[in-house]
């Protein structure tokens, strides 16, 4: 019984590589505008979940809907058939992603990293794309770096450019895949600052896979703990972090807070 349309809805999602079951039946709904943090040990399948949502990987089994529309299938004469590239591109336009290792385009300036997809994919004019890029880069504190190349930036700056690049596509859902894990400790703060702004100031749906427990607690509406490809426990951050009911959650939080 859904009173309102979910932004993302997954049922029985499974993914295996060879004989390894990375995801073993995930049921998860994400409401529009919700800020959801996914935590769990490395190898628990958190990143795979995001990669399937971004259509970088195909689920082995199960069902995902974005705004009520199946992601990996499309309906034809009432039957579900595998999505064609046109369908996938339409669905992808709703989703953006920021990667652990930034994945900036090294041969483009910061400005072109941010404008190339809006110009070529959204087909907005160069002037408009650049105006919007300047605005976004100002917002992430990199207005002065528009003409730099990625190799001239620090990790924290690269990640902020990557966030601006993803935002320039107006996604409804933003996926953040351990976006601070590859950063030197002193650079984590500047990226979290940008994420905090986004979480508080926008109504974008955000799904973050993260190891930053304190940060997850601060900005999330809900936290999901995944282990061995299954959701072990979920709930509001105050409860999950203060009084987890499952032993596995307790052990994970203990291990990560002691580290």
């Amino acid at each position, binding site marked *: 019984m859904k009173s309102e349309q979910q932004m993302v809805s997954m049922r029985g999602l499974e993914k295996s590589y060879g004989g390894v079951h990375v995801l073993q039946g995930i049921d998860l709904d994400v409401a529009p505008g919700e800020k959801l943090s996914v935590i769990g040990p490395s190898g628990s399948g958190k990143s795979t979940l995001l990669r399937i949502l*971004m*259509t*970088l990987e195909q689920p082995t089994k199960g069902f995902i809907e974005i705004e009520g529309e199946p992601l990996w299938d499309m309906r034809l004469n009432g039957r579900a058939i595998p999505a064609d*590239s046109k369908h996938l*591109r339409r669905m*992808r*336009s709703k*989703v*953006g*992603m920021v*990667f652990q*290792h930034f*994945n*900036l*385009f*090294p*041969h483009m300036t910061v400005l072109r990293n941010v404008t*190339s*997809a809006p110009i*070529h*994919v959204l087909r907005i004019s160069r002037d408009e794309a650049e105006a919007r890029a300047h605005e976004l880069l100002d917002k992430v504190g990199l207005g002065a770096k528009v003409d730099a*190349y990625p*190799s*001239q930036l620090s990790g924290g700056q690269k990640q902020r450019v990557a966030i601006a*690049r*993803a935002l320039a*596509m107006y996604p409804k859902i933003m996926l953040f895949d351990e976006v601070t894990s590859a950063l030197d400790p002193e650079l984590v703060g500047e990226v979290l600052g940008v994420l905090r702004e986004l979480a508080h100031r926008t109504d974008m749906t955000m799904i973050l896979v993260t190891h930053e427990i304190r940060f997850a607690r601060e900005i999330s509406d809900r936290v999901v703990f995944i282990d061995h490809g299954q959701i072990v426990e979920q709930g509001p951050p105050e409860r999950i972090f203060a009084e987890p009911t499952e032993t596995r959650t307790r052990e994970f939080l203990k291990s990560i807070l002691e580290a």
Partner: protein
Amino acid sequence: MSFFALCWSLLDGLAVTLLLTAGGSLVAIGLAWIAGLGRLSTHRVVRATAAVYVEVFRGTSALVQLYWFFYALPLLGVHLSPLVTGVVVLGLNIGAYGAEVVRGAIVSIGSDQREAAVALNMTRRQQLWLVIVPQALLRMLPPAGNLLIELMKATALVSLITLSDLTFRGMILRAETLDTVQVFGLLLLIYFGIGQALIVGVRALERRVAGRWHMGRAT
């Protein structure tokens, strides 16, 4: 005969060699891109055609290819001038190796780049031309430079299909002067000089591209 007189009589031959190198390179670069991208196509027929081309021209002797185009093709009703034959065969032969350079450089670009392009909702074509190819270009340059030199050296083969290139002129000059050591020595020096000039050119191009991205020399 004086040293300079020797050089002078080789100049005409040098012009033919340079013309063959330039023409052959253009054909080779065109074919390398077509076949290299063809091998990565989603269409099976395109992939297979490109693969057959590459294997045939890599797998057979350049000299025999030249003979076939020069002596056999006219028997099948296709007549090409010796110069065109030289340009076409050199282009076909080096283009086959070049196709592998193009393909190799493209597949060497990490999947992270393709994934970023997918996340920005680019089409396959946009992923290739906006993201992958510009980066692959830098990795193509060093091996492409090697192939360019291979092509330049292989131009000497056309002396065997009546073209009076540098080598052909050298042979005549040797017969006239009987100064084998000097004439062939000079030939070696001239080929070496052209090769060095090509290397300098390719390096400069590499530095320009890499320098622009502040990436240092590609490895």
